[in-house]
């Protein structure tokens, strides 16, 4: 039985979840640099990724201020190993083809949008402030990824097939987005995390709406879902992502500045 977290620890844990999810999905988008299907997409992908790393930094800085070990934002990002990372499993899934990249982004953006929409009213000025700024950016992310899901879903026969495969294969990682653990339940009771029922209803509602408009199959609400990131149990992908992302900090631990 794990010891109950203090409120400060619980808040830090939640901030790290937000930060880690942002950073890891951005890392995946960075992998696409120079490899996107059009120059317009190069720009848009980097733009979205840039927003998300910026938001991650804000959340890490708050998490660092709450850190008992006095780690700074960069130490939190570049020196924690996979079992300490709290990003959603969805965010670490590989880019695959553009249908998978966009399906992953869409599922994430819907969750992100409604999460932030709730956090702008949090009784914690710093959280509300970061969320308000992030919400403007994520509103655009969601508009963009929804548009791509529709475009690919209702584009050509090939794109439709690919999108069907993508929304189905990533579905198993979406349960986590709307399955709260005790940390989130406790914080939600204080308004510091979204109300879980509301978040689940909003997420499901918007996903259904967009998939329908995209002429894609609705996915099974009772499908088996992979959970684990909230306890630090990830897919095999995360270790490799961190090996690359943290390379310099790990290889040159004595470097104080970069």
């Amino acid at each position, binding site marked *: 039985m794990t010891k109950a977290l203090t409120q400060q620890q619980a808040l830090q844990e939640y901030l790290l979840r937000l930060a880690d999810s942002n950073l890891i999905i951005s890392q995946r988008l960075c992998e696409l640099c120079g490899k996107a*299907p059009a120059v317009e997409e190069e*720009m848009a992908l980097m733009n979205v990724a840039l927003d998300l790393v910026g938001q991650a930094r804000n959340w*890490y800085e708050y998490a660092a201020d709450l850190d008992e070990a006095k780690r700074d934002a960069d130490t939190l990002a570049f020196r924690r190993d996979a079992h300490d990372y709290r990003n959603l499993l969805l965010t670490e899934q590989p880019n695959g083809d553009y249908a998978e990249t966009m399906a992953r982004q869409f599922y994430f953006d819907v969750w992100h949008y409604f999460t932030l929409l709730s956090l702008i009213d949090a009784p914690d000025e710093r959280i509300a402030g970061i969320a308000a700024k992030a919400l403007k950016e994520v509103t655009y992310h969601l508009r963009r990824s929804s548009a791509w899901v529709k475009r690919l879903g209702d584009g050509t026969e090939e794109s439709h097939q690919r999108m069907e495969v993508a929304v189905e294969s990533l579905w198993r990682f979406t349960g986590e987005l709307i399955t709260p653990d005790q940390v989130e339940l406790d914080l939600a009771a204080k308004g510091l995390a979204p109300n879980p029922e509301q978040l689940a209803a909003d997420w499901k509602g918007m996903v259904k709406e967009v998939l329908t408009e995209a002429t894609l199959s609705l996915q099974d609400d009772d499908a088996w879902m992979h959970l684990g990131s909230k306890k630090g149990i990830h897919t095999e992908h995360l270790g490799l992502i961190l090996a690359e992302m943290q390379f310099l900090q790990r290889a040159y631990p004595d470097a104080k500045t970069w």
Partner: protein
Amino acid sequence: MYAQLVETGSKRVKTLEEMSPEERTFQEKVDAEIKIEPKNWMPDAYRKTLVRQISQHAHSEVVGMLPEGNWVTRAPTLKRKLQLMAKIQDEAGHGLYLYSAMETLGASRDEEIEKLHQGKAKYSSIFNYPTLNWSDMGAVGWLVDGAAIVNQVVLQRTSYGPYSRAMVRICKEESFHQRQGYQILLDMMREGTEEQKAMVQDSINRLWWPALMMFGPSDEDSPNSQQSMAWKIKRKSNDELRQMFIDQTVPQLEFLGCTAPDPDLKWNEETGHYDFGEIDWSEFYEVLKGNGPCNRERIATRKKAIDEGTWVRQAAKAYADKKQQKQRDAA
């Protein structure tokens, strides 16, 4: 300089007397520093040369994302990661902006990109060199963007309106990238470990000569320059630009506490410029021919991205067509 050895298709510059009335009006406009706009009459060779030059420049922006993409996933801190991502995003924007400027000349983006993938179109030789350590992200910003700025600042006065305006906008962003790049190196040299300082010197050792090659062959081996100068597509010679770059860069190099891999580099009191050693032109021409360390990889990556994206672009078009049809049906 993101365009090198741009073919003009002419051996010799015509005199005003030899020109047709249209050509003469055009040349007089150019001579009077009046910008040529897309709808104005222009000699066919001027148009073709500009398409080559602007497309080379656009391709360079896009191919140039690859050596940076090699490190954006390994940037050492959140701040450096954000800076590099912002730089890459700017470059994609420059690419788009330049392709649009090129399209005002009646050229097709898809066709020009196809030429790139077939090895028929060039891009700056510099991007065929690998980025082998983190400080290359600093050195690329400082030296490569620095060299590009020296050329592009002059190109802000180029005769073709859309290209000139693109340069004005691009120069602002490039200057910002250059300062950031230099700061990466300066921070490592001032506060870094011995290993980090060695990294910086290693980057400079590898990128110094390729950066100087960015200005293209020396003037005596630059057969197309005269025509480009007459058209004011080019405003200063390769050697003049190279000298400007060296003169402004060496003091910055010294301020870093680093050295250039050139034993002949020294201040010349008489000329008021730095003297420097002979560039290895055989290396330059080999890289242009496709034999640089990364030529094949760069083109293969770009071609793969566009080829594998075909179904995505087709879907986007099909969807847009469907939407339009629906709107028409509703009307």
